[in-house]
């Protein structure tokens, strides 16, 4: 079995009284796009900063590429690229100069660096803004510059901390496509976000975090199988008698029924043809209804069922 790219064992981090990471464990394999999903304050960024040896921790161990990560682990740092949550660029340098500056911290060879900088600009689609100063860029373009500065040196392991916050849909898609491309080129990605749609879209494995704990880990399919709900049926209706709700509750695989705001919600656990059975029953009772929806569980449902609260609470 190959050595994991990152191995975190029993990590504990306190900020005075606050327990930010509570005996946190994690293993990330080479070639993964690994998502750290959790609400704000769940410990995602703290985990990342501990891995990068920016933060001290109280207990536990962290290994990156099989070695202990320390502030002076320059050989390890050379293989890592980081895109911070806050845009970190020089306001007085142009797009090209910013990427060249940060790439130069990793790559000494000027010719190679020039090539890498050009490739990074092309990768994030900033060629035509090459001589622009950051203050002239839109929020989305600025985020793209932030990413280019973090990945220009072609690292093996890339950390992206909420890279799409406050970004327009076009830039967001460009960023997500770019991350998938980096992964195809061989980079292992650690992606932290509280946007479950993004995590679902690009991550091959996901850890759900809350209050500094790793609540669940697996592929999105594995995570969804961990919960009771496999389908939620929603039907628009004017009204429905209480006794009919009890009948629907007794249908096969149905475990919860409620009627709210002229919507009938039917939650099913496993099984097939659940929607057909519910619609057959309504037809049999000659109840009229409007639009019908059938939704598969999302990561938010996983989070809701595990923690009892919405991911964005």
């Amino acid at each position, binding site marked *: 079995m190959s050595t994991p790219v990152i191995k975190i064992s029993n990590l504990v981090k306190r900020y005075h009284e606050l327990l930010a990471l509570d005996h946190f464990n994690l293993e990330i394999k080479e070639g993964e796009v690994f998502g750290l999903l959790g609400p704000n304050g769940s410990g995602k960024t703290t985990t990342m900063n501990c891995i990068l040896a920016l*933060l001290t921790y109280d207990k536990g161990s962290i290994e990156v590429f099989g070695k202990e990560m320390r502030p002076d682990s320059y050989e390890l740092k050379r293989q890592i690229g980081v895109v911070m949550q806050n845009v970190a660029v020089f306001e007085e340098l142009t797009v090209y100069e910013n990427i060249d500056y940060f790439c*130069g*911290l990793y790559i000494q060879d000027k010719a190679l660096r020039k090539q890498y900088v050009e490739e990074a600009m092309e990768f994030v689609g900033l060629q035509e803004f090459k001589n622009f100063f950051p203050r002239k860029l839109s929020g989305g373009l600025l985020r793209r510059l932030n990413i280019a500065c973090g990945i220009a040196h072609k690292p093996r392991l890339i950390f992206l901390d909420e890279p799409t916050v406050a970004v327009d849909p076009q830039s967001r898609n460009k960023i997500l496509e770019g991350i998938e491309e980096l992964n195809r080129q061989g980079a292992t990605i650690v992606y932290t976000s509280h946007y479950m749609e993004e995590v679902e879209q690009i991550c091959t494995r996901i850890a759900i975090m809350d209050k500094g704990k790793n609540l669940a880990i697996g592929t999105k399919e594995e995570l969804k199988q961990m919960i009771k709900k496999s389908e939620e049926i929603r039907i628009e209706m004017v009204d429905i008698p209480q006794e009919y709700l009890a009948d629907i509750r007794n249908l096969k695989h149905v475990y919860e029924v409620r009627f709210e705001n002229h919507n009938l919600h039917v939650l099913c656990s496993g099984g097939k043809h659940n929607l057909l059975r519910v619609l057959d029953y309504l037809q049999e009772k000659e109840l009229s209804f409007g639009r019908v929806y059938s939704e598969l569980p999302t990561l938010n449902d996983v989070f809701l069922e595990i923690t009892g609260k919405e991911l964005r609470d």
Partner: protein
Amino acid sequence: MFWHAFYYYLKSTLRQKENLCWTLLFPIALGTMFFVAFSGLSDEESLHTIPVAAVVKEEDIALKSVLDTLGEAGEDQFLEVTYASEEEALDLLQNKEIIGILHGGSPVTLSVNAQMDNMQMEQSILSAFVDQYNAIFDGIKNVAMTNPEKVEAVIRGLSEETDYNKEITYTDGTMDEMVSYFFNLIAMTCLYASMTGLKIAIRNQANLSALGARRTLSPTHRLISILGEITACILFQTVIVWISLFYLGVILKVNFGSQTGYMMLASLVGCMFGISFGFFVGCIGKMEEAIKVGILMVLTMFNCFLSGLMVHSMRIQVEKICPWYNKINPAALISDSFYALSVFQSHDRYFGNLATLFAMAVCLCVAGFFIVRREKYATL
């Protein structure tokens, strides 16, 4: 890596227009203000020719002789004398065309116009002149009555001025105390370089800025890149001070003396201290940048005040009360270096001051490095 950091920091600093504007324009503007204010003072203090009317009779030979001598045209002309009758003289005085009327006789008397309030200084000078004339005239008259043979000797003695002190100039500099204000201004400009030193510290610490975090994560030895940035900063700030010196010395013609090379060296060491000072303050604690800027401003102005930027005699007062502080006050050390160049032939005091400044700069830089060396933080 040193040159990579040096090149980009210099480029970045040169493009900070506000920074460039303030660091360059502030000393130039303040220097111009000093220059204008001091020029006014010199003008006020310079003695103008005083217009007077003299009402004399045939027998007032001595007075006429003195008035003719003092009224001779030239750089030293003291009086502008109009001989007139009593009525004409009064008319002139009432029309404020003259400052006073000298009436011949024994004693000589002076009439002034009480409504000419703005001419009190000239009136006082005339009064002093009349008193001195009468005293001398009475003295000669007494000698003539008692020892007539010594009159000639007394008159000769009075006409010769004897200097008992001899002025020897070792340098071609100036001891004009107004120039010391400009020395203090240059010292202040050097110390304001601390703002750029502060920026270096903040941009290199992960717990103070996102840029600091990104750079901490790079595989570069931070001390080398910080050294590159500090060097770029010293170059930038020193050139700024040199431009200020050029403006004050060449354009405004403030007499700094001819030891230009030494003055440039003093500016360089002053800027080194300023940047190290700012870097050190930037490295200590997790305070916000604005608070650290405030600390630097207060300390800089306090030191400049004690070195005599606002009140020339302040440094002398500090020397009396707390002499050791003048030995470590960077503003006093910088301005004293310039002063020493102007006044003393030997460079001992000059190099002594620079050595102290340099040593303090190195200490602050090393202390800052030790703090920044800690690359792992409890909180970010």
